[in-house]
């Protein structure tokens, strides 16, 4: 076997933060072969980005490489003088980053930004550079490259910017491409495009790729080999097939088990209790021991060694040191893994009201009809209203008590605006919102305030949704006081205790401030705050998308438990289809301010009718290695809601578009009492 392209030995990186030192990366070793995609998988803060940056020697000022060796083709990168290192960067190792919005220089044309790399590393000058830039832009699939290379980054969409970043990285045909969460900031359909592009380019050019991701699905679709990082260490390395079929390390298994999906409907998700340990301490045992279900005494006292369980599959865990190679993996004390998705759990236990009749006869708790929220665009000399951003353009939906309606769509489709329009945080332009039969849009001042206890909201970002200068008790009490839920102070206090217990926090945490809590705990506080006024409906606006998978599972379990216990209705706004499949009863799919398809979860997820729903579902990367589904690729980006395409909004991107689609917006086609779609494909039937 040839020597690997990149060999990392015992890499240790520290970050100075005041008086303490954070061991961001602690003794990481791996190697990447030529033409191979190697994935570094891990949750936020586990040190995977720091590893990547230290390969390029681009650590932030506070970070430094303490020890270790990085050799590229036998050349020790850490020993190189800075000047020599510069000719490695961009020429032999190139990198693309997570945030395409910020990673390009805003005042430089993209053409120049690509040319810069060429001028630095190649002998090309003048016309030849220009020609190569156009070729690169063409390669990464930017249409009309000639005109666009003189555009500035802000004129490109997020997906297009990431393509430009890839073009910059590929300019000198590097041996190794480091892709640090290249698609995390992008929507699923765009993510599918970019991943496709990366795969194609890697195949064509035969470069090695170090893919850094937290998304098991992305890793499954891209990588040949996978390494899992936890708290600064690599805890497991394996080939893709082996990894997804037989994950070994308890942490990896838990990660798989905490993924939501259709298969786990009606059950509690596996959770990883506790939090990632602080990295500024000396460890005397396994870093995962505190959260591991199968930990025993030895795990706390002895640092586990690296164990090779089979060829190419290594684990850092005492379980395997004891059992060694002879024990087959099925005999392990742990059960459950990514491989079993679907098969073992095909008969989910019935949910409350699972065999439901669609709510006929019962008046819905919330009834929204023709909701429109438009934002005026001011233009011209006197800021006349020149147009409308039709963020929400005629949305109708209904939610019954104790049920969950998921509102699904990509960013910018208006789903958050729907939530705010229902809550009257944004006053709707038109349409009606009736809560328990009462029209909300016409209520003003005190009358509206009096109804506010009935419907509450949980926001996406747990860091900005809690006032950093108030104690948890004050935060929870605020709503109760504003709505007069409990009069006496002592009564309120006991209610706060009760609420905190209900969301799984200890009552004495009420004297603490939000910054002392982790993201998941803050989200619990936000839920407790909403519960404080005893609402009947909670609008959950992407409540888990800022959280890691394992924490997401905790929150989903909590929400589910509360629904069973209190009979809450949820409007669950999300872009994560796996969560929808696990959690929701009904689904409404939004595209550009309108609902294009609605139905029960089974109807929409199993038998999607609208081409957009189909494309959306197919674009979600699955977290297993074996699946080879046909991915429906959507061309282009989401159009602007200020200027939606004529006719069906989706027709410019629709693979099945007909001439008639351009003419008028399709009427609703009903398939069943619950399932309906807006698409001309079914108009005749």
């Amino acid at each position: 076997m040839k020597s690997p392209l990149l060999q990392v030995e015992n890499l240790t990186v520290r970050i100075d933060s005041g008086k303490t030192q954070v061991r961001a990366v602690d003794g990481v070793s791996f190697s990447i072969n030529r033409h191979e995609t190697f994935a570094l998988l891990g949750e936020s803060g586990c040190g995977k980005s720091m590893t990547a940056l230290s390969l390029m020697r681009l650590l932030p000022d506070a970070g430094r490489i303490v020890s270790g060796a990085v050799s590229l083709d036998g050349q020790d990168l850490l020993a190189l003088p800075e000047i020599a290192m510069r000719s490695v960067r961009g020429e032999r190792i190139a990198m693309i980053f997570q945030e395409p919005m910020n990673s390009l220089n805003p005042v430089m044309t993209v053409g120049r930004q690509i040319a810069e790399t060429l001028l630095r590393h190649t002998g090309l000058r003048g016309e030849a550079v220009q020609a190569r830039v156009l070729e690169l832009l063409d390669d990464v699939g930017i249409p009309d490259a000639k005109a666009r290379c003189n555009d500035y980054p802000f004129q490109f969409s997020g997906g297009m910017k990431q393509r430009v970043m890839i073009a910059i990285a590929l300019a000198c045909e590097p041996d190794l491409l480091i892709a640090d969460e290249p698609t995390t900031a992008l929507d699923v359909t765009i993510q599918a495009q970019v991943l496709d592009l990366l795969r194609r380019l890697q195949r064509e050019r035969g470069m090695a790729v170090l893919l850094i991701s937290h998304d098991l699905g992305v890793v499954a679709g891209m990588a040949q080999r996978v390494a899992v990082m936890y708290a600064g260490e690599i805890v497991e390395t394996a080939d893709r097939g082996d990894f997804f079929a037989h994950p070994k390390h308890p942490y990896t298994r838990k990660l798989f088990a905490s993924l939501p999906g259709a298969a786990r409907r009606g059950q509690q998700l596996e959770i990883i209790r506790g939090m990632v340990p602080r990295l500024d301490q000396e460890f005397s045992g396994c870093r995962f021991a505190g959260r591991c279900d199968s930990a025993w005494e030895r795990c706390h006292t002895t640092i586990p060694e690296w164990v090779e369980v089979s060829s190419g599959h290594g684990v850092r865990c005492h379980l395997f040191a004891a059992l060694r190679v002879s024990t087959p993996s099925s005999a392990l004390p742990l059960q459950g893994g990514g491989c079993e998705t679907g098969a073992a759990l095909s008969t989910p236990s019935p949910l409350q009201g699972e065999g439901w009749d669609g709510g006929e006869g019962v008046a819905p708790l919330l009834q929204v009809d023709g909701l429109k929220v438009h934002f005026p665009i001011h233009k011209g000399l006197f800021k006349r209203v020149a147009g409308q951003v039709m963020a929400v353009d005629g949305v109708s939906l209904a939610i019954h008590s104790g049920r969950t309606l998921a509102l699904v769509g990509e960013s910018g489709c208006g789903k958050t605006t729907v939530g705010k329009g229902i809550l009257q945080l944004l006053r709707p332009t038109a349409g009606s919102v009736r809560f328990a039969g009462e029209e909300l849009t016409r209520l003003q001042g005190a009358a509206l305030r009096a109804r506010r206890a009935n419907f509450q909201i949980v926001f996406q970002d747990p860091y900005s949704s809690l006032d950093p200068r108030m104690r948890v008790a004050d935060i929870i009490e605020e709503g109760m006081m504003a709505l007069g839920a409990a009069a006496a102070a002592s009564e309120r206090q006991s209610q706060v205790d009760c609420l905190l217990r209900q969301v799984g926090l200890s009552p004495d945490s009420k004297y603490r401030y939000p910054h002392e809590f982790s993201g998941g705990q803050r989200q619990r506080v936000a839920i407790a705050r909403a519960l404080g006024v005893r609402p009947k409906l909670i609008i959950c606006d992407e409540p888990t998308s800022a959280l890691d998978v394992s924490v997401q599972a905790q929150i989903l379990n909590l929400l589910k438990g509360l629904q069973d216990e209190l009979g809450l209705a949820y409007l669950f706004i999300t872009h994560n289809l796996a969560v929808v499949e696990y959690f929701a009863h009904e689904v409404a799919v939004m595209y550009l301010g309108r609902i294009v398809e609605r139905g029960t979860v089974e109807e929409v997820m199993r038998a999607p009718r609208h081409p957009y729903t189909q494309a959306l579902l197919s674009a979600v990367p699955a977290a297993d290695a074996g699946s080879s589904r046909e991915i429906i690729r959507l061309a282009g980006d989401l159009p602007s809601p200020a200027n939606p395409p004529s006719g069906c909004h989706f027709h410019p991107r629709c693979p099945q578009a007909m001439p008639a689609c351009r003419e008028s917006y399709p009427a609703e086609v009903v398939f069943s009492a619950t399932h309906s779609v807006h698409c001309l494909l079914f108009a005749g039937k």
Partner: protein
Amino acid sequence: MIQYIIRRILYAIPILIGVNLITFALFFVVNTPDNMARIHLGMKHVTPEAVAKWKHERGYDKPLLWNGAAQGEKKATDTIFFEKSVGMFAFDFGRSDEGRDIAYDIRTRMWPSLAIALPVFVIGLAVNVTFAMLMAFFRATYVDLAGVVLCVAMMSISGLFYIIGGQYLVSKLLHLTPISGFDGGFNALKFIVLPVVIGVVAGIGTGARWYRTIFLEETSRDYVRTARAKGLSELSVLFGHVLKNAMIPILTGAVVVIPLLFMGSLISESFFGIPGLGSYTIDAINAQDFAIVRAMVFLGSVLYIVGLILTDISYTLVDPRIRLE
């Protein structure tokens, strides 16, 4: 874009009207012209006749806002407000309380002011940016630390001391330049050098430190990391990427003061005896010549607003995000 600029200009009109009203209220309503007359004629032993004569000579004897005694449109125009305040919109500043033509004075005196202020502005900008770049390049080293400490120390010294110290050192001890005075043509050069140098030096502390913050903020952005990942040297990152982005806030921040350069500097002009608008204002303040002060207040506001409009225009020129919107 042109529409945008026109809108900014239209927006300036109500502000100018506001300034005009404020000055009118300040100069004519709080104190009546009678009071002013008494100040000028001496406090004691002033006959009402003398006051009336003084007022009449300067046109202060008319009603403030509404002349009921006049005919037709004169009811509105034959008033102090119309003659003294509205006229300023046409840059008709009238005569000073001493009877001099203010507009003429301004026209002749703004050139010496500009001769000092413009070099101070241009050289100062260049020097400050250079210093700031140096500190940003050596960030987190002792060079940077020393630079910051020096800046803080320099900005803690009152501008008066720079002038006094400079005059003492350069003119009195070393006899390199004249202490003060001014002359026309090329002879002016020897009088200009010292005020310019002092003006630049006095500005370094504040300017360089501020620009350094801007530079450091830019260097921590993601695109800088991208540029480094391309293999560019730290110097070309600084010049090729950071400078370009940092110049947007720096330039647009500096543009605001360009029109005000005509006004000159109050302090340094009077110290160096330069017959510019700054010393004109100071003399007027000391002589309690309200007509001149009023004219300068209005002129200053107009120039500031012109500066604001220029800032908006320069944004559209420098920042492609605004230019192409």
